[in-house]
């Protein structure tokens, strides 16, 4: 026999002004199963809470309905109150008298009646509530970090320094990511590699970090705290345990003209190579697509002959390893559009129109020109340089509606670096708006304009063409009454749009996380859960979520790391028990439910006879994965799936408790 307590809150005037709370409490007393009913000015206040606790004990209540504000507001509060009084917290429900009644209706008898009906509905529900207990899931305290750029490095170090194991997977031969390609960094103009390389080394040497370079995630199964990741270790063709990194092989490799990824195509590299001098690990790999030995059936093999430590191993094969991890942080970074994306700028046919990333390499001391700004076509130092921001970004016609966020700042930096290196030169920046939100960012841009005399032109560039060895940049100055501007430039740098990695879609599918229309990975909530994905246990950091600069990437990385550390701070994971479960006895195993589950939480379970033979297969819901949407519950024909908190019985009772006078009349 249920003994339900009803607690009607006035919320000061908020409910009390339009609903006759005392009347509601009085009516509630007569509802079947209600043992106690009372109204009070502020139920969430300390005396209000005490009132509930005492009533629970005194009247030996088996369930509580708090008729007050929205459960989205105070459900946790009152469930805690119930728990403190010794009642299972899930035996407490809230009737929404404020948002759904008193605030939206005028003071009237009908409003009070509605309030009473809402209470009755919840009374009927709570009678069918069952005690629930949080779900405990064990946690494997190892994190998988996918991507070894600055975001991945920061995440890995933060997690490792808090005492947990980290496995880092990087697809290229070295960690470092885009940041290792940069020259100086805004807004302080400190050298990118100088601040990055010590961290790269720290990653390699950290006792808690296992680093796999030249490796990719093959698949991920399992759920928060209990993932199983399969990692593909691509064949390096060099035994790194033997190699001493002397570099002889790279120097002697006869294939030398491969466009260098690290230098954004501005330089060349051999087929056996270390991507850059400060690479971690500083040992080479063989690029099999370009190596003569692999392309021409064993011809060449020069590196093998000259290697002093006999580290070259052409017979290596791709290897697959499986690791147990408790959390995953995705830090795979971003990509940029190439100059060939722009019809109006010549489809990439002009050598001296380059991307921002290529300019970084030109300006970098480790770059192909050793830091001198020389244009790619003839190696001359450009005397007149033009920078174009929003190349592709903020342009719906190009399919990129968003702002790439970093271009304004790095183009200002580029113009500044150019002026510092070519004092006599003239630099212009075409822009739509200058977006310099960030600590000392605006000041940085002003410095470029005022101190370094960079010519900022507010307007778009409609076309660039070549004429007599010059690039004619045709644009408009919208601050000068849309006056047409033509600049005869020696070199043009496009701040091309930051875009998602081409592999992001397939990676998202492996991880079962969602991505947005531009293929950037989607966060769980744009404001309040920006580092988590919708899949519990998988976090995001850096530009794989959206283009962002180094400080933002690092902040998010530390955020993701702290989420992981918080998860790893417990031996067991506690989850809300409002999830679905299967009645094995009636499930017929059609597995239609499997395909509607967005979390892949439904597995096949074999029911076996004593002799081990399989009698039948039934669905089983993994409590670690189920998020409690209930789509399977409504789909199941035999009603063999039910869900805690919104069970068949509960919702049925709620519906039948409403207006039931007419049904009684006819049935």
């Amino acid at each position, binding site marked *: 026999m249920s003994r339900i307590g009803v607690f009607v809150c006035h919320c000061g005037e908020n409910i009390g002004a339009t609903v006759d709370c005392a009347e509601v409490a009085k009516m509630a007393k007569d509802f079947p199963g209600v043992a106690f009913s009372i109204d009070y000015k502020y139920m969430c206040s300390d005396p209000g809470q005490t009132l509930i606790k005492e009533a629970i004990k005194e009247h030996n209540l088996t369930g509580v309905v708090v008729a007050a504000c929205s459960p989205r507001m105070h459900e946790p509060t009152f469930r805690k109150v119930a728990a403190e009084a010794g009642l299972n917290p899930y035996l407490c429900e809230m009737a929404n008298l404020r948002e759904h009644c008193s605030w939206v209706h005028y003071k009237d008898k009908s409003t009070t009646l509605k309030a009473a009906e809402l209470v009755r509905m919840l009374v009927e529900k709570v009678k069918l509530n069952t005690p629930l207990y949080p779900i405990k899931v064990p946690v494997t305290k190892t994190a998988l970090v996918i991507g070894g750029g600055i975001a991945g490095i920061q995440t890995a170090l933060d997690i490792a320094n808090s005492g947990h194991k980290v496995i880092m997977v990087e697809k290229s031969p070295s960690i470092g990511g885009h940041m290792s390609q940069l020259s100086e960094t805004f807004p302080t103009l400190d050298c990118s590699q100088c601040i990055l390389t010590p961290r790269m080394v720290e990653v390699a040497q950290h006792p808690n970090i296992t680093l796999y370079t030249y490796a990719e995630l093959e698949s991920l199964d399992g759920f928060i705290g209990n993932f199983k990741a399969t990692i593909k270790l691509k064949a390096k063709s060099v035994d790194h345990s033997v190699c001493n990194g002397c570099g002889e092989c790279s120097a002697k490799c006869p294939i030398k003209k491969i466009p260098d990824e690290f230098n954004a195509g501005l330089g060349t590299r051999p087929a056996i190579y270390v991507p850059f001098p400060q690479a971690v690990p500083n040992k080479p790999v063989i690029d099999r697509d370009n190596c003569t030995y692999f392309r021409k059936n064993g011809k060449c093999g020069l590196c093998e002959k000259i290697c002093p430590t006999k580290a070259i191993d052409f017979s290596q094969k791709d290897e697959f390893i499986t690791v147990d991890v408790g959390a995953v942080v995705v830090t795979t970074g971003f990509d940029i559009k190439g100059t060939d994306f722009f019809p109006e700028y010549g489809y990439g046919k002009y050598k001296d129109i380059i991307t921002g990333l290529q300019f970084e390499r030109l300006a970098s001391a480790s770059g192909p020109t050793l830091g001198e700004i020389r244009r790619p076509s003839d190696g001359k130092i450009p005397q007149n340089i033009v920078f174009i921001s929003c190349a592709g970004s903020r342009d719906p016609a190009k399919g990129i509606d968003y702002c790439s966020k970093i271009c304004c700042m790095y183009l200002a930096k580029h113009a500044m670096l150019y002026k510092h290196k070519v004092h006599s030169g003239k630099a212009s920046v075409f822009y739509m708006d200058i977006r310099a939100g960030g600590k000392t960012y605006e000041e940085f841009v002003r410095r470029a304009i005022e101190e370094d005399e960079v010519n900022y032109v507010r307007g778009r560039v409609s076309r660039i063409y070549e004429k007599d060895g010059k690039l004619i940049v045709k644009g408009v100055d919208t601050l000068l009454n849309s006056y047409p501007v033509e600049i005869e430039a020696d070199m043009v740098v496009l701040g091309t749009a930051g875009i998602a990695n081409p592999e992001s879609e397939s990676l998202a599918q492996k991880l079962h996380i969602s991505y947005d229309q531009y293929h950037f990975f989607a966060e769980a909530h744009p404001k309040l859960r920006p580092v988590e994905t919708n899949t519990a246990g998988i976090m995001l950091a850096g530009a794989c979520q959206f283009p962002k600069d180094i400080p933002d990437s690092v902040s998010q990385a530390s955020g993701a790391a702290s989420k992981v550390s918080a998860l790893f701070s417990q031996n067991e994971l506690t989850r809300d028990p409002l999830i679905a479960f299967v009645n094995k006895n009636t499930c017929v195993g*059609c597995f239609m439910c499997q395909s509607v589950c967005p979390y892949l939480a439904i597995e096949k379970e074999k029911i076996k006879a004593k002799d081990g033979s399989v009698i039948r297969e039934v669905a089983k819901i993994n409590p670690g994965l189920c998020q409690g949407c209930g789509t399977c519950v409504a789909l199941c024909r*035999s009603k063999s799936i039910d869900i805690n908190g919104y069970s068949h019985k509960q919702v049925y009772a709620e519906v039948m408790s409403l207006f039931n006078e007419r049904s009684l009349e006819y049935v």
Partner: protein
Amino acid sequence: MQELNNKIAELLTNNLVSIFISYKKGLNGKIKPAFFTKPNEVYENYFGDEAQQNLAVYVHKPEVKKYSKVGILANIFALKALLQLYAENQIKDNYLTIVTVNQDNKVIVFADFNEIESYIAQHQIEKNTNKQKEINELLSLSREKRWEFWVEQLSSCIKCYACRAICPMCYCSKCTVELNQPQWISVPAHSLGNFEWHIMRMMHLACRCINCQECSRVCPMNIPLHLLTTKINSDMEEEFGQIAGMKTTLDFALNTFKVDDYENFIR
């Protein structure tokens, strides 16, 4: 149909099946299902135009399931039903030997369900235009008239559940109608429960019903259930382009979706 009889006898003799489900002539001359367990019973086997019943319903009956290997003579509807059952994980591998007779009177023994899938793809069932016409006529009536029509039809339902018993797709071990906690379908013999029962049955059959119309044939009260099954089948095809009993994979209208499904009825 000697070839068929020989085949069934051969399957039984060689122990490839321990029971074979087919048809025979009953004492009253009516065609009824036959369950042969010995080769010497096969002489009773009947095959001809009157053999219409969809035998697929028997493969999930417990009396048949206790045999480890089952043979079945399947007409095109039974083939579709079996394929659907297979997709719904109801037929274990190596459990069934499925035999059909094609339009040229050739006996075909299917090696696997992929063969059935392609056989069905080549043997589309023609749409019964008469039934579609009946449906269109009903739809052309006013809503009130349609209501009156169905109230009259469904009021005569005696909830004998013959429609369920004959349906190859109704294989739940515990049907929703038997649940009383809560009572989803009203028990008393009034029309409300009848409506609930038939609406629920149709919703559960949507995208699964292969429209063999056995339910309509066996209804002792002659309720035109085929109107409902035909309607739900044409709806599925029109709205989602999906037809039941065509694929080995579980990819049906109500457990899949398209992001751009039409929604002009949603505000």
